[in-house]
């Protein structure tokens, strides 16, 4: 197991909080000092994130070997495999009486997300450099938000996960409501917060029920045997109790069938997993913009200041998709097999519908907002394939979309700051005055429409292949009617979304960046600063790197997904 001399994950989480506190202690007039501290903290967490990512990637071979060994050991293989995947583990009891432990780790699934968060943090601070109104509070809240996001990604204890999840929402509300677009900010901030809170409350109830069920299982005679064996083999720590929020322990319960017992709620066809999976998956899915719970996101993105839009669309939506996989599919594989075959229909609606709406928006930022809805649909669609190809594609799409959409919002912000309008028809010819933004936008646009050589292509292609592969194996029963082989139709429909994506990306590119430029309409347009150019390059580079060399990320994702697939197969 990969570890490191000091608690690097805790450092990543708490460094921004410490920086935020320091910033709050500085007199508000010293704006440059505030900015300096913010960028120093952001740079430091990015460095640590990169370190974690590279460290994990460098040890892939040994992790794969450990996974294979776990597979051969023959006892609770899924859980053992999952345990073997975790790296940089930090674990200590927090509230033992309540079964809560402070358990952090990275695996192949969240390591890319950690890196992505680091990237968006740095660029977010940089694009917010010129905020003059209450700079201090902005930076402090922003850093607080970042640490919440990090916490969710690396938490391996569901209580800790929820703790950071809620921690992230409040600064988000304040940032949008205070610094957002005047016309919409209060409405959007409220809408966003309520949607996410409702989703997370639903998920939380499900999780508590799950913890109780698992605890009861471990107290039952057969469960006790498994529990003791796991303790003895080192799968669980010796101090483990039956009542616990710990991810490994819940995975073990899931794998041992604790959630699959029929007869739940007095019905012969229901099990815990069958009842609660949709609540947990969609509860988190709200944050990933799953149809029909996506409407907070375009409004939220439009209303938010640029940096918040970037972190929001770039990272926060991934948080939902990640948690849905982690807490939904991993812990309740049987529920996944029952429910994902219909959830896929929601995801294809996301893809096509989001694209259609983006196609007709006049507001530059709404276009990007709805494109996020469309692209996050592809992520969830990748999860629904339940095979390695499709899920790897979804993982790639998470990273790719994160960097891409942050780049998009960066571009929009840079144009808006200068032109003071986001109305697409009244813009035009910006290629001439802001060529860097134009090219960055085109790179982002090409990524979103799946141009080979950029990361979006490899992600979409693998998702499509995964769907084709899954098609013969999946069927959906509605009453007496069985729908089989319909994933192939889903592929074709989602391809329609890709076509429309091309249409709206090109339309926006054409209208905003090409055509005649009217200097008299935009008196404040000044060339980009080096800081802004850095932001664009920093976000565009990974799209190209991942597109040309997907092997820098795909094998890593695979290690993260293998345990999930073992669990799915074993259920």
């Amino acid at each position, binding site marked *: 197991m990969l570890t490191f001399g000091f608690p690097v994950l805790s450092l990543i989480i708490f460094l921004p909080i410490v920086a935020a506190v320091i910033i709050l202690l500085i007199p508000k007039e010293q704006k440059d000092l505030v900015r300096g501290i913010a960028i120093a903290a952001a740079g430091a967490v990015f460095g640590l994130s990169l370190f974690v990512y590279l460290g994990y990637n460098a040890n892939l071979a040994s992790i794969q070997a450990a996974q294979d060994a776990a597979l051969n050991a023959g006892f609770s293989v899924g859980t053992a495999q999952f345990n073997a995947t975790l790296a940089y583990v930090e674990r200590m009891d927090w509230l033992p009486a309540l079964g809560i432990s402070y358990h952090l780790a990275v695996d192949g699934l969240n390591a890319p997300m950690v890196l992505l968060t680091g990237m968006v943090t740095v660029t977010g601070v940089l694009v917010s450099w010129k905020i003059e109104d209450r700079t201090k509070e902005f930076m402090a809240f922003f850093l607080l938000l970042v640490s919440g996001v990090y916490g969710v990604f690396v938490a391996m204890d569901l209580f800790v996960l929820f703790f950071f999840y809620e921690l992230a929402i409040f600064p988000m509300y304040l940032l949008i409501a205070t610094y957002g677009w005047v016309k919409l900010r209060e409405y959007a901030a409220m809408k966003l917060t309520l949607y996410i809170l409702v989703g997370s409350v639903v998920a939380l109830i499900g999780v508590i029920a799950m913890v109780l069920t698992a605890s009861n299982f471990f107290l039952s005679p057969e469960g006790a045997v498994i529990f003791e064996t796991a303790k003895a083999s080192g799968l669980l720590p010796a101090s483990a109790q039956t009542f616990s929020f710990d991810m490994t322990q819940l995975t073990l319960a899931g794998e041992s069938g604790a959630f699959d017992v029929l007869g739940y709620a007095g019905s012969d066809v229901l099990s815990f997993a069958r009842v609660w999976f949709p609540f947990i998956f969609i509860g988190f899915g709200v944050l990933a913009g799953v149809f029909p719970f996506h409407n907070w996101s375009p409004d939220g993105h439009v209303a938010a200041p640029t940096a918040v839009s970037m972190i929001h669309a770039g990272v926060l939506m991934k948080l939902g998709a990640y948690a849905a996989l982690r807490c939904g599919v991993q812990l309740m594989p049987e529920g996944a097999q029952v429910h994902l075959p219909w959830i896929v229909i929601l995801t294809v609606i996301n893809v096509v519908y989001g694209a*259609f709406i983006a196609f*007709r928006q006049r507001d530059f930022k709404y276009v990007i907002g709805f494109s996020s809805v469309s692209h996050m649909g592809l992520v969830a669609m990748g999860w629904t394939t339940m*095979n390695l190809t499709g899920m790897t594609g979804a993982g790639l799409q998470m990273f790719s979309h994160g960097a891409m959409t942050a780049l998009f919002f960066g571009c929009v912000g840079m144009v808006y700051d200068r032109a003071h309008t986001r109305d697409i028809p009244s813009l035009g010819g910006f290629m*001439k005055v802001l060529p860097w933004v134009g090219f960055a936008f085109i790179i982002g646009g090409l990524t979103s429409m799946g141009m*080979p050589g950029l990361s979006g292509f*490899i992600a979409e292609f693998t998702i499509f292949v995964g769907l084709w592969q899954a098609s013969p194996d999946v069927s959906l029963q509605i009453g007496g009617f069985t729908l089989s082989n319909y994933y192939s139709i889903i592929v074709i429909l989602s391809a329609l979304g890709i076509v429309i994506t091309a249409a709206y990306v090109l339309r926006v590119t054409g209208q905003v960046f090409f055509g005649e430029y009217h200097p008299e309409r935009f008196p404040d347009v000044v060339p980009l600063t080096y800081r802004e150019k850095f932001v664009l390059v920093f976000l565009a580079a990974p799209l190209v790197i991942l597109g040309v060399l997907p092997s820098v990320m795909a094998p890593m994702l695979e290690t993260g997904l293998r345990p999930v697939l073992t669990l799915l197969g074993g259920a």
Partner: protein
Amino acid sequence: MDLGQFLSDANNLAWLIPVGPLLAFLVITLITNKATLVSADEGGHYADHNHPAYPGLKVPVVADWSRVASIVVGMSGVIAAWLISIAVVTNAAGVADFGKYVLESSVRWMDTGAGGFSMGVLVDPATVAMLIMVPLACTLIFIYSIGYMAHDPRQARFFSLIALFSGAMLTLVVADNLLLLFVGWEIMGLCSFMLIGFWFEKPSAYKAAVKAFTTTRVADVIMLLGIAYLYAVTGTLSFREIVYNVEVLEGLAELPAIIIPGLSAAGLIGICLIIGTIGKSAQFPLHVWLPDAMEGPTPVSAMIHAAAMVSAGIFALLRMFPLFEAGGHPHDGVYTPPLLLMAIAGSLTAIFAATIALAQNDVKKVLAYSTISQLGFMVAALGIGAFVAAFFHLLTHAFFKALLFMASGSVIHGMEHGEHHVHHHAHDDEDEHDHAHETPLLAAESHGHDAHDTASHDAHGHDAHGHGEHTAHAPHFDPQDMMNMGGLRKTMPVTFITFLIGGLSLAGFPLVTAGFWSKDEILLDAWYGVTNGYGPHALVFVLLAISAFLTAFYTMRQIGLTFMGEARTEEAKHANLGRGVVAFTMTLPLVVLAFFAIFAGFVGVHPDFPIFGSIFSPNGNPFFDFITTSLAVKPEKVGFYWVPVLTSFAVGLGGIGLGYLMYWRKPLVAGQEDPLVKILGTTLHTTLKNKYYFDELYTIIFILPAQWFSKNVAYEFLDKGVIDGTLHFTGRLFTWIGDFIKVMNAWLIDGFGDGLSEMIGRAGIWFRRMQSGSVQQYLLIVALAAIVIVIVFALSTGVLQAAP
């Protein structure tokens, strides 16, 4: 890895072919493409007026060194690719039993559990044939661009883009699997987008770019689905493992497809891939983007139409042909759905585009439709199983069409020159003007009196379609309109001769042109089917024969209108290329291509063709024998028939003769109407001129409904109406419930709580009255109480009951 060792293996050399242009792209983009922003009144570059494309803005001025360096880098890249291609072809020639054994090398690119993707290069006979044509054509196009773009301020960017374009095309050619082919395919699509919209200030240019990209994108996504399905079924995308492997092909032909009953997996995949080509090679009904793509600079048109993009579509079909054929055998009249699709789409496209070309007056648009039509020939040929004939036509067509496009570019350049002459120098000193053109205007060497000249040339570059600045010069002048030309043979003789050679080759002038031989092969294959009574063969034969006749006719019309007779405008009278580097770089490629337009046809002469067969193909058709060696299932050879040969003669000579009679013998004079209008009737002519109203039709069928759906249904109704409506209703409902509870709270619960305390308070007030301190009152109360107690006592103990 040791590079020397890596390259000493002949298998690996092909990796390097695309590297040169791709490196050139990077170097130009990142290093040599440097422009300094100069305000329009500074520096003397645009001294007399604002730069037309940068009104009131600072103008990026490319330094001399940047322009020259970019050209040098781009040329080195493409020449390197050409030389390495020659080396690879030589290596391949050295392989014993080439075809059965090929040069190949591949590396693992990405693992995805179920097999993973590899990337590699493959040199087989098909690749070799393309490697002879593509790098040469690319090199010539680069040379041509030195002159053609010499006055454009963004020449460096132009070179970076065409370098990327060539790199992508070469990648596609050497790819050993569908995925890498698709990568090259899409990058070309991107480059064509950037190049068609190169003059992005013009709304027409960027709209054409968007249209081209969107249309091809629709097809590409369908193709991608096919690729994904193929991968999901077979677990590999390598050509050698799929199409050259009989077992896999048979398996795919027997496996039922996933959605459509009655179709095999091979059929479904084939149809998806063919749709990709229908988009890329502009076949009916996705042809609409190609004529608009003429908005790009002319070398781009040549690149897209001849050397690269549209040929790529056909090349992909050729690569995957065994898959389309799987389960059928067109030689015996057994067609598979993909083959039928190709036969029908191809032959319809051929005739349909040829009719449109009749009524076009824009010199480049005629060629655009002609290209669509000729690609239709190839697709139709594939549909009837004429693999070799299609391949042959692809190669010959690439040469003569590149020639025609570049020659038409020269014509346009010459016309702009003439226009410039008429409008700007009508009263200037002639000598001074000519001097400006003798100077090699490679870089922005515009000083003193040259300044004006360069500036206005830039204007031509951007306003090639008579837009913007020229609106100042009434009447509107279009340097691409053939009606404005005439008599150019006198001022532009080299262009005329080469154009004539290319045109005759396109028209299929018998025996001496490449176009004749390749078209003849297709007709021969089709006729073979007719003799056996196969329906699709007959359809293809008839439609292609008519198309060939139309082709010959409109080609003659074009040459007649452009070069024959007397100049119909002042501009045409003064049209010429001048002298110097510009003229040289623009004519050299024409001459080289003219050579191939004649002689490339002799490699594929049918061995039984009288006289010519015994001269050029004494040991059997060399092209046929070479190209089919690598196929798992070899196409049958078709015998020699007189009917198709005579048909070829008749349609070629007939079309040429008719065109000669109408447009050469009596050339149009200024102001005269095209005689074709009278013959066809105004209605038909207008319909053709407006391309059967396809653009309008698509707007009505696809674009408007999609927009309407997006806005009204998806956004307004569902998103804002239903979903947000539900949300807002929920919000309002909660508010109502809140209000209700609030009222309830105030009335009932607060009422209870407050009421209780109030009651106690009131009771207190009431009881307080008793504490009045008045003894009489106390006594009264005591007395009353005593009475009550007595009565209660009496009642409860039964004292009163005893009384009555």
